[in-house]
């Protein structure tokens, strides 16, 4: 089972290993360094430039979940950069977050009128974030869906020009990224980027025709200039007041999104569905008695992985004798969610 979701950019990289022709003579070629050599028609003559992508990294995102007091959940991430990475990781963005716990109200940037209000907005966006030293964390509205949250951390090489260690260099890892939330975890995408040099770019206005295929492909490259990895993120809101059956249904609904992402086998999802339904029914009719059904679901997960109860992806190991029917991170998230419901209903430890 895949543990890493490499979306789109992988496909792009594969496709750009070959040459793309658009306007006669135009092309995008990826060289041995992984840089794109762009040959384009500027309306008067053929020109060439180079685009250094931020994807020359080998990231691994390790999620860790912990249930703290008053049902607050801590989300922590460790980022690893592979030994073959050519760039240090300097930016991490996780979007699609349903909610983040804030001890102080968010001041939206849309309300900013002067430097003081800008600082207030900035600080309110920084406040909920946990980050390692020298990293800047921000929680902003997700640009793709303003009702959701995007968390991000960046390492400013310009703010720390004398640092020996830039971001997360190849062959190293960095702990301490995170935030808290009352929402239950699901699985979302973390977008990671490597450090790129300041680039000269086009010496003119670039390709002359916005209709050309090369422009379309360049847009794709620029829009997908990151490496994506799966991460546990707040994705499932808890009903208030707490309702175990409704919570289970939300967990089940989120689980169904994993099928398309190939994080769970459909047959196993169907098996879990019956347990979800039974558990919800029992919770509705008999209250905590539904915990028994949850226990049976947890057992199905434990059959495939060990260490799920620790809430840390690092600690989860696949049981070699059993073929996995669910991705490791997915198993960790589902185990955590089910255990949460059980605890809210007085069961589990």
């Amino acid at each position, binding site marked *: 089972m895949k543990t890493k979701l490499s979306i789109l950019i992988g496909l792009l990289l594969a496709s750009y290993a070959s040459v793309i022709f658009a306007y006669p003579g135009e092309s995008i070629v990826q060289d041995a360094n992984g840089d794109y050599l762009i040959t384009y028609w*500027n*309306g*008067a003559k053929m020109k060439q*430039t180079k*685009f250094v992508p931020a994807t020359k990294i080998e990231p691994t995102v390790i999620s860790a979940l912990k249930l703290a007091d008053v049902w607050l959940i801590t989300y922590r991430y460790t980022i690893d950069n592979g030994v073959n990475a050519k760039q240090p990781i300097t*930016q991490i*963005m996780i979007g699609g977050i349903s909610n983040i716990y804030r001890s102080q109200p968010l001041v939206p*940037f*849309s309300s*900013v009128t*002067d*430097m003081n209000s*800008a*600082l207030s*907005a*900035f600080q309110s966006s920084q406040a909920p974030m946990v980050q390692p030293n020298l990293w800047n964390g*921000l929680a*902003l509205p997700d*640009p*793709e869906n303003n009702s959701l949250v*995007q968390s*991000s951390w*960046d390492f*400013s*090489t*310009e*703010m720390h020009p004398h640092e020996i260690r830039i971001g997360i260099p190849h062959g190293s890892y960095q702990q301490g990224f995170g935030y808290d939330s009352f929402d239950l975890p699901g699985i979302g995408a973390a977008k990671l*980027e490597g*450090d*790129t040099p*300041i*680039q*000269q*770019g*086009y*010496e*003119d*206005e*670039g*390709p*002359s025709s*916005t*209709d050309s295929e090369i*422009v*379309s492909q*360049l*847009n794709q490259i*620029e*829009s*997908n*200039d990151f490496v994506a990895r799966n991460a546990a993120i707040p994705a499932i809101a808890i009903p208030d007041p707490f309702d175990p059956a409704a919570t289970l249904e939300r967990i089940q609904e989120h689980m169904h999104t994993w099928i398309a992402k190939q994080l769970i086998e459909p047959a196993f999802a169907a098996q879990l569905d019956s347990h979800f339904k039974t558990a919800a029914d029992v919770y509705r009719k008999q209250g905590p008695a539904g915990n028994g059904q949850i226990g049976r679901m947890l057992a199905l997960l434990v059959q495939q992985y060990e260490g799920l109860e620790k809430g840390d992806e690092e600690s989860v190991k696949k049981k070699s004798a059993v073929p996995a029917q669910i991705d490791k991170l997915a198993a960790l998230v589902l185990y955590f969610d089910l255990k949460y419901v059980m605890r809210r209903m007085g069961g589990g430890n």
Partner: protein
Amino acid sequence: MDTLTFAASGIRHQASGKNHNRRLNFALHILAIAIPVMATVQPAVADTIAATATYTIYHTSNHETCDNLQGAYYTYSTPADTLASHQASFPRYCHQGGILKWTQVASNFVLTSNTSLTFTVDVARTAYTAAVHDTGIVKTWAVFWTCPSGYTGPDASHMCTLACPPHASGTPCACDAGYVFDAAGTSCVAEQYTVALQNPLADVEPSGTANVYAATSRDVYAQVIDQQTSLPQVGAQVKFSVDVIAGTGGHDHHDALRPKGKLLDCRDNTTEVESTVCITQLDGKATVTFKAPEVSGTHTINAECISPACTNPASGDINVKVDGLESIPISPFYNMQLPNRDTNHPKAHFLMEAPQKKLETIAILYMLKTLYMRKQSAPPDITLNDASLEWGGVLDCFLTCNSDQYPSTPWHKHHIEHRRGSVVDIKANGSTGSIAHEKDFRTAAKKMGIALGVPHGSGSGRHYHLRLNNRGE
């Protein structure tokens, strides 16, 4: 034998008074002879014309004397009062050698001339009868019917028909080609069509972006109406043409080469032309498709119906523009290069609202980074240059962009994109006010979901081409 021949299908007699027997005989005689049915007078427009018709009845006897009619009387009735029968006597003033002088004896009749009876009847009446009695001798009278002025006839049925006015003929009257009845329906006047252009003409976006997010063409109709009847005219030919108004769309320059909108030829609805003739349909509307050029501006569409009867060509303006563009507001977090060096396009700082908000947030995030780098007192080092014209579309810059290496001519898209208020240039040439920390600027942009790409331009022209909607437009 003299006979008085007139009256008609419904002869009515009333025996009364001292001449009862004579009247009776006369009546019987009248009934006995074959009286042509002549006097059912039903003018064709009887119900609508309040006029009089004069009927002349000639006495054809050559031996009748005045004395013979002494004491004669006549009766008459009309359909309007068929239950009543009126009796009147001829006046007793025959004179002048036996010449009869009959004068009016009843309100409905005028009898004149010694040998004729002239009836004046209200032609609104649809029929009447009359009979003349003499002293016992049945007279034969020839009746000549005439119609009042303005009418023709009578026809064989003694029908009067409204005479056709000038420029009309036929029964019933029809106006000649090119003429129509006036509002009263009594005369033919030359046809007059009015052509009116659809109003208002909705805006349309400039064409030429890789992806079309709004309509870049629009159907426009002109309606031809008959001014007299207010009815739509089907089959009328309407010639459409289009031109562009100088100085519109944010371009303070103009020449004959300025691209202007085209019309689709109504014959094939495909070929792009500057004028075309279209035919009105049942609703009187002729429709043409207007296709916007890449350059914004106000276009005038003219519609002229090809007929002498059409007297007023119509015209209307259609704005080729991107709707919703707003001038970028002044902000403490960025500078703007004002005034724009390109005096042909003095206002090139327009954006849509959502991209503008993103831009401002990027500028704030970037500015705060500079604060953390102890640059609090420094002015913002984001300087905005070209965004979009106030109506969007091609932003040409031949005045400031032209060079031997990168030739630029009016109306040509030397400025790539910048057409829909979502792209803005940010100075990155190393001069005062340009971005000092490009990596942090890129980071700020990415946090707002903007894929920045590589800079554009070289030397003093180096800048970031910020696509705030992440697409080239």
